């Protein structure tokens, strides 16, 4: 293998009855990276994680960890540890015993065990809590104990199954940053699954967007945002407006689209194989839309829209408008540049065509 | 786990269960059924026949006791439900904090003593030389000693006492799980006390009611000590007759037939109770 990768899979398939929950998944996770699998519930991401942990077996395909084939290795023999969705801290044991559980299974002597438990607790920011019961801890503390229980074993690969789901919003934001720091500090390869795109974007080096058992796109967060490979990714990662229309002309990787109300707008082609006359969908982000009067910046395109309502939400304030029956959202900057909008007012929304993406209709 | 290992573990766990249920429950009961159809012609010859069951129907003493036992058990069950429901309601819905736990534990007190001890306690209270009699005399309400034991009322007092625990516990458990908003919604939508009780509370508590009633009925029907020790000369109980056939008369065939009849009665009532209320045994007991 060319690169040193901690985890690589090829052609993984897991079927339940007729449907394949995991359908031809191949992936490659380089050592020391934070790899996220992002997808809506039911997309097969939990099944994939269970295949990696060894709680389930693939029908086809292979799993390699540091080049070792893992298919027939039972879960307790894999160099993989997992932070479970509900953490699965043993309620009958203290924090120290929870963390020492794996060490004990490896027959680490008691004195050494105590030392390593104390050290890892310090590393996750919970020094001296060995004797507490997991039930007495706060949500964030339990989270860290669950992490420490895995990290103390120094696994090649740490799997995390939506561990932040149970936390409230504030704590979640805080833990996101902290997880990222911990991953850097320990240098362990993380495979993190989530349905929350913000979690995936903030923490990951690489994100795989999963849908119906397949990967739609595997890329760094910024690329997912700027260059979504499929309409699904465009719609799932970040907010997006979808405008459907008909291709008029194609040139230089750019496409002119005639919207249903007759206006012609422009966007960058995201897919090949489109020709003029085809139905197409143009995705443009609310934050790319600008309010203009008559003057249009060079190279920009614009469309008319009618204001339906404004939604005030601090920095995330938006205006909801419509264009020929298609809903359009645009960001309302709160720096005083946004116009005062009344319901029913006609506005012009402009954007840089390089920031809009055009896909063939029905391609999703 | 591979297929053969999981088959092995299934059989390892299934075997003790099957041994228990077959050797201690199924086979003995089938044998009892078989024996009930046997007629002893001499000390070592047996024939098949319905004689034991004919005896039951022709001997009015048998079937009268049978009907009496059934009716009194039903009445006791109903009375226990009536007495227990307000108590369970108070514990589950009105009491709070510590008093809730303490009251619930207090309901378990009779369980600390066996049926024999409980019955004995009632005997000390109710008999002619008992406490109630002495107190009534001390108050000057009666002139001489009063015998309150050895009648049907005494039997029912004792039986209800034995059953209360088994009624209160399932009732508290189901009522505890009820969302108070349901009751509030009932009133909010214009229901009165009776309507809310009938249409909201009782349907919700049904699994608890049925499970309590089944257990109390079974216990009452099968009880032996209370009716024997507290009942009068004419308040015979069916279990007593079974006991007599087996222990005193050594007439196993007749005893088995009476046993089968009691079992049929109890199964029938349990089945009927479940059918009428639309519950299943699994939901109610398990």
């Amino acid at each position, binding site marked *: 293998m060319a690169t040193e990768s901690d985890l690589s899979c090829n052609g993984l398939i897991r079927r339940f009855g007729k449907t394949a929950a995991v359908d031809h998944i191949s992936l490659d996770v380089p050592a020391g990276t934070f790899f996220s699998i992002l997808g809506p519930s039911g997309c097969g991401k939990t099944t994939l994680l269970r295949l990696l*942990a060894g*709680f389930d077996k693939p029908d086809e395909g292979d799993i390699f960890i540091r080049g070792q084939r893992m298919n027939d290795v*039972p*879960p*307790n023999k894999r160099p993989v540890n997992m932070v*479970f969705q*509900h953490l*699965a801290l*043993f309620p009958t*044991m203290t924090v120290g015993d929870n963390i020492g*559980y*794996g060490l004990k*299974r490896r027959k680490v002597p008691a004195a050494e065990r105590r030392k390593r438990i104390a050290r890892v607790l310090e590393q996750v920011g919970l020094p001296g809590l060995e004797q507490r019961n997991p039930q007495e801890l706060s949500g964030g503390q339990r989270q860290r104990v669950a992490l420490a229980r895995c990290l103390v*074993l120094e696994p090649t690969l740490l799997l995390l199954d939506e561990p932040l789901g149970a936390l409230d919003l504030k704590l979640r934001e805080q833990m996101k940053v902290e997880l990222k720091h911990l991953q850097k500090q320990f240098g362990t390869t993380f495979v993190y699954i989530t349905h929350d795109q913000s979690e995936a974007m903030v923490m990951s080096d690489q994100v795989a967007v999963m849908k119906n058992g397949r990967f739609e796109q595997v890329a760094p967060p910024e690329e997912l945002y700027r260059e979504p490979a499929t309409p699904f990714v465009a719609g799932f990662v970040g907010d997006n407006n979808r405008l459907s229309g008909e291709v008029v002309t194609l040139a230089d990787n750019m496409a002119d689209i005639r919207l249903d109300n007759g206006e012609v707008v422009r966007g960058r082609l995201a897919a090949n194989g489109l020709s003029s006359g085809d139905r197409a969908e143009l995705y443009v982000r609310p934050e790319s839309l600008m309010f203009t009067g008559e003057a249009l910046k060079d190279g920009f395109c614009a469309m008319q829209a009618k204001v339906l309502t404004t939604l005030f939400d601090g920095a995330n304030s938006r205006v909801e408008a419509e264009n020929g029956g298609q809903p359009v959202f645009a960001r309302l900057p709160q720096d005083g540049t946004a116009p005062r909008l009344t319901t029913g007012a006609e506005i012009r929304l402009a954007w840089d065509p390089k920031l809009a993406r055009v896909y063939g209709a029905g391609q999703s | 786990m591979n297929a053969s290992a999981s088959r092995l573990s299934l059989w390892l*766990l299934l075997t*003790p*269960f099957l041994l*228990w*249920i077959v050797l*201690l*429950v199924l086979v*003995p009961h089938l*044998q*009892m059924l078989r024996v009930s159809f046997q007629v002893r012609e001499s000390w*070592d010859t047996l024939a098949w026949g319905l004689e034991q069951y004919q005896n039951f129907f022709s001997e009015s003493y048998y079937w009268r006791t049978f009907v009496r036992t059934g009716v009194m058990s039903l009445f006791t069950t109903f009375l226990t439900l009536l007495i227990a429901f307000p*108590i369970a309601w*108070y514990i589950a*819905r*009105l009491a709070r904090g510590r008093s809730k736990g303490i009251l619930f534990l*207090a309901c378990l*007190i009779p369980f*600390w*003593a066996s049926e*024999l001890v409980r019955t*004995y*306690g009632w005997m*000390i*209270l109710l008999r002619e*030389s008992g*406490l109630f009699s002495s107190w009534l005399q001390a108050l000057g309400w009666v002139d001489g000693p009063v015998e309150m034991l050895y009648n049907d009322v005494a039997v029912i007092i004792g039986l209800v*006492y034995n059953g209360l625990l088994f009624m209160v516990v399932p009732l508290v458990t189901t009522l505890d799980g009820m969302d108070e908003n349901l*009751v*509030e919604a009932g009133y909010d939508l214009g229901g009165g006390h009776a309507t809310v009780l009938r249409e909201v509370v009782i349907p919700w508590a049904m699994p608890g009611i049925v499970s309590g009633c*089944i*257990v109390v009925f*079974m216990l009452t029907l*099968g009880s*032996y*000590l209370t009716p024997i*020790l507290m009942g009068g000369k004419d308040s015979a109980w069916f279990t007593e007759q*079974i006991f007599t056939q*087996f222990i005193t008369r050594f007439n196993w065939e007749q005893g088995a037939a009476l*046993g089968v009849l*009691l*079992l049929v009665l*109890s199964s029938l009532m349990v089945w009927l109770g479940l059918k009428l209320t639309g519950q299943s*045994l*699994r939901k109610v*007991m*398990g």
Partner: protein
Amino acid sequence: MIRSVPRSRLFDALYLGYLVAFFVYLALPLLVTAVFAFNDSPFPSLPWQGFTLDWYLADGSAGRTGLFHDDSLLGALWVSTKIAFWVTLASVALGCVNAVLFERLQFRGKEFLYLLMLLPLVIPGVILGVSILVFYSGTANEVSRLWGIELDVFRPGMPLVVMGQVTFITTLATLVIGARLRKFDRQLEEAALNLGATPLVAWFTVTLPWLLPSILGAAAMAFLMSFENFNTTVMLTGSDTPLTVALFNRLREGSTPVLNAVALFLMVVSALLALFTLRQKGSG
């Protein structure tokens, strides 16, 4: 009816009165039984003759024999203890196995077998005793008649009593342990495997500690149920009478305060067992 719905004061007063009456009804027989264990009179009835410990301690020299010198009652107590020990052991072991069988495994006919498991709960205790007597004692008789072999285990006596009680106490133990196992999060076992434990080690280090409070609870309950049982026991007992049967025989001869003394002793033991179980639950 509930706290948030207003009630009249009269209703509240009546309700409170009812509650008080109810708990008096519950406590009175037991209280009376307990008190008369210390009355210095040969009959457990009024008038109160003063406090005495004779009904526990008297050695028979003054015409009174207290519980601790009454060999037949002490013997019966010992028989009951032995029976309860074996019943507890067998029914809790069976209960554990059944709980795992019904809560963790999937197999054909499970629903039907579960109903079979519940069956002993809806069979009157007398019938359980009778059927076991008829089958086992009957078999012993037949074997003796046909081949001249004596199967004394199957004659009325301790083994038969244990079998009879195990029949229904196993169901109760299964329900208690099964209810706890149902609340067990399977992910905990997976977590143990994930941390390097073999399935067997995971069972003993994670699942069993979780079940322990319910196992102890089931054991305390089984012991009490066995100790207090009369209906099944009376049909199956042989020459070594257990305590409840011995008390019953005494009671038919006439009541003496020794019976009160035994009753109080039993209540105290039961209460201690119950407290022990509650403490277990509290800490578990």
